[in-house]
């Protein structure tokens, strides 16, 4: 008779065998609104989803922080999909909370930024739950844009909106953010090279680079 294994033990085993994709290889950049269509056009040619309609998304993202205790804080990004797909109720749309670890820039030889990323799907009461836990909302923003795929790579082109009052969202800057990322289990450094190669193909339209957060 096989003993029932708890879900937690399974996950731990999965983590130990490094098969949970929790490492994100990332390059970021931006494109001016005026050149966005050129970029989209090029991406449509390069990415996998040629035949299908390009996937759109609109997410509202809240940034919540817990702490500090002993100088340590925890920041979570709670994302709510705002675009209701046909046949779906607003209450059915998924919520996710995301943890993003300290980005590692590495030296020149490393092609992308590497950071820990854990995306947890959850019920819509997540905001209430986190605030009961002691999380405080820092700020929030809205992302609206397009998503492309190329193999395991995800390419996002989106506009960022900020709000001064509750429902008054204003676009931030005259550019769209361009993000190139792959989620992979630990130690799959080879995919980073793919990310860099893809970024090369978008030059000189967009300069996708390792963002040095300390200099921001």
């Amino acid at each position, binding site marked *: 008779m096989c*003993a029932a294994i708890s879900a937690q033990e399974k996950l731990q085993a999965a983590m130990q065998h490094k098969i949970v994709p929790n490492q994100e290889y990332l390059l970021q950049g931006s494109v001016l609104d005026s050149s966005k269509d050129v970029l989209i056009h090029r991406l449509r040619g390069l990415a996998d989803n040629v035949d299908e309609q390009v996937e759109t998304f609109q997410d509202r993202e809240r940034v919540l922080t817990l702490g500090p205790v002993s100088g340590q804080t925890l920041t979570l990004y709670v994302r709510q999909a705002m675009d209701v797909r046909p046949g779906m109720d607003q209450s059915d749309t998924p919520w996710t909370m995301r943890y993003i*670890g300290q980005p590692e820039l590495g030296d020149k030889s490393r092609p992308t930024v590497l950071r820990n990323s854990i995306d947890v799907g959850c019920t819509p*009461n997540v905001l209430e739950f986190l605030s009961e836990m002691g999380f405080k909302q820092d700020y929030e923003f809205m992302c609206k844009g397009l998503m492309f795929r190329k193999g395991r790579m995800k390419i996002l082109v989106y506009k960022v909106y900020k709000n001064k009052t509750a429902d008054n969202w204003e676009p931030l800057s005259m550019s769209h953010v361009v993000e190139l990322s792959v989620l992979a289990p630990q130690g799959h450094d080879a995919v980073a090279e793919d990310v860099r190669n893809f970024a090369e193909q978008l030059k000189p339209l967009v300069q996708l680079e390792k963002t040095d957060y300390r200099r921001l």
Partner: protein
Amino acid sequence: MIIMGFSTLQTFPLIEGLTGPQTLDVLHKRITALGARVSGQFVVDCETYFSAPSLLPGNSQRVLNVLHNTEEPASVFAILEGGAKQPVLVADTLLDALLPKMAVLYTSNKKQTRIESKGNRYEMGDFVVKLGSVTMSGSFKGILVEVCYLACVVPALCWEMVWEFMQSFLGSTVPSTLPPYIQSRQNATFSPTDTIQMYLEKFNEFRKQTVAR
């Protein structure tokens, strides 16, 4: 969310002069004599985290319980106690990977607080019975019996029938009224989070027991 019938949960006292495993064996014989058959094993486990002392204003404390149920293998349940409300968050299993990231803010002492109910799962018609032996930090604490009627989701509609079923193998230990947790929501649709909340309630009772056998 998937609705999966109506569950009720009760402790079963050890039979006079018998150990935990022996009592479970008696129950096993009774229920298989009724015609139920074993359909595998189940585990419900609970891990508890405590908020760091200075985290919340006024030094109030929150207790974060993280529960897993083999019946809902893709979900993790988080229940927060200590505040005005007692919210339940259902998340996917990656939540377990997130918890270590808040180790300083919410701490846990795994060896001492981990509690679980584990045992056989039986099926009979539309009934599912789970005979769980409860262990906390490795030592036996008692027996929890979960009885689930899959075909009905409103407790008030089928409680008497479920009660009749439970009596057939648990005898006089079955309380004649609904468990307090269900009583307040007996006309609502039952959901897996309700089951998990009842488990947490029972786990907390076991933790409070001063005499552990």
